């Protein structure tokens, strides 16, 4: 019975990882369309990705949007998290629910709502409009992760710092910030990944001049089957793993260390 369960779980895990394995594998195949298991080995699809101007342009646009929105989301989210973690505000639970609420809304609903609103104020199909939308969508993650970091650390550390004569700036810079940094970094990384991969809202709000990488992939995939897409996807998967694992590990390790 136990063995059967382990087999089942193994299969489920395989099911879970299957599409990722397939995508990575097909990016190295030599056939003109993605085949799994791949035949042959080549890096030409990666070269193709890099040498196609539209794809490079999309990469640049995605990077620009995501960097800008992540910076803003990290600052705004960190401020909120600090405010929530350090005060005895009335209605704190309501506030934190409100701040985390964008995650609850279906993307297509927010997308349409933003389209309608942005059209009115001339933000549709603009860079600032997209950045604004991305900041809205990713700030909750930053708030969540920074709050977790802030909650773990002992408020008496800040009291001790005050007792030792430190002003609020020194306390923030020397005590609070270093101790919530893992949360901020994890939040920033997560926000960046979420923003870069974002499709639905971006699809409705972008114009022909602002085709992000996910949009290009989305459109491409519906009309043609090309291992270049696998190559792009593999690059993204690997990039997120490289960036995501250390942030995740750092966040987990601080959890074990504790605040005091």
């Amino acid at each position, binding site marked *: *019975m136990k063995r059967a369960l*382990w087999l*089942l*779980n193994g299969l*489920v*895990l395989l*099911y*879970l*990882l*299957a*599409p*990722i*394995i*397939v*995508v990575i594998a097909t990016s190295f195949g030599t056939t003109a369309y*993605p*085949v799994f*298991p791949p035949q042959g080995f080549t890096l030409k699809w990666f070269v193709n990705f890099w040498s196609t101007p539209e794809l490079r342009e999309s990469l640049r646009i995605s990077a620009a949007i995501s960097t800008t929105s992540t910076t803003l989301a990290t*600052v705004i*989210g960190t*401020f*909120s998290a600090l405010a*929530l973690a350090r*005060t005895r*505000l009335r209605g704190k639970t309501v506030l934190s629910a409100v*701040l985390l*609420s*964008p995650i*609850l*809304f*279906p*993307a*297509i*609903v*927010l*997308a*349409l*709502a*933003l*389209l309608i*609103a942005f059209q009115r104020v001339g933000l549709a199909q603009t860079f600032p409009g997209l950045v604004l*939308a991305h900041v*809205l969508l990713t*700030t909750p993650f930053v*708030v969540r992760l920074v709050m977790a970091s802030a909650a773990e650390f002992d408020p008496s550390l800040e009291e001790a710092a005050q007792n030792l004569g430190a002003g609020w700036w020194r306390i923030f810079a020397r005590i609070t910030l270093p101790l919530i940094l893992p949360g901020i970094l994890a939040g920033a990384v997560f926000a960046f990944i979420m923003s870069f*991969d974002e*499709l639905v809202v971006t699809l*409705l709000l972008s114009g022909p001049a602002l085709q992000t990488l*996910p949009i290009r*992939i989305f459109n491409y*995939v*519906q009309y043609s089957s090309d291992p270049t*897409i*696998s190559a792009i*996807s593999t690059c*993204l*998967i690997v990039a*997120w793993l490289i960036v995501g694992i250390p942030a*995740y590990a750092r966040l*987990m390790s601080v959890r074990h260390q504790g605040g005091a």
Partner: protein
Amino acid sequence: MRQKVAWLLLAPNLGLLFFAMLGPLALLARISLKGYESGHGIVETWQLSNYSKFLFDPFYREVLWGTLLLGAEVTVVCLVLGFPLAHALSQSRGWKRSTLYFCILMPLLTSTVVRTFGWMILLANNGFINRTLTALHFIHAPLRLMYNRTGVVIALAEVLLPFMVLALDTALLNISTSIYEAARNLGASSVRIFLRITLPLSLPGIVSGCVLVFTGALSAFVTPTLIAGARVKVMSTLIYQQAMMLLDWPFGAAVAFIMLVTILLLFGASMRLSEQRREA
């Protein structure tokens, strides 16, 4: 921290939510009550016809039921496949747990488009699944897995499975091992323990996992579009169509609002349930 400082720090976030979320959602609600005439644009009258069209017109009824059915199917698949995995996860410790946890979490780091693309490759008529099954003589003709509901369920269930597993894991971790030991000590068999102890005690996790997956399936856009295109009509593709191609924003907004209210009600109900259970 003084209250004034706290509110100052919260201001940008609250402002963002007000102008970029509440405002647009209010506009969405407003426009759903307007009319639309192709060629003329939005008509400035107040009407509920958009809502009645969606809820009562047989064509759109089908879309609604189709979406709900899809949600139900995906939820059941995730529950059945996810429970054993979550159970194994909740029992493991140390590096085994970390690795397993990471394997389950990792797909969430990959975008839905990428994962769905992978499924497109797998589910094609001459894709890996069909070729393998044919080679093993399980089937004679390729299974139609693309451009139909089956393919969407398979792909969407994989996309949403991590949420179910993580929700179940949290609930299962709350059951202390000494309860299992006590049950064993009292002579219960594994099946009995599962039915009378594990299932009832993990019910909150089951409910929250199901709500997460169901709402995720209801609002899914990428996977149904890529796997089934126009063949399987769900609410999100309908909204997209109305918004971007037919430009009937009022109708699209009405459908969107119905989806929103459904999902919020589901979340609300599940939160109320978990509160009640905590008080009990």
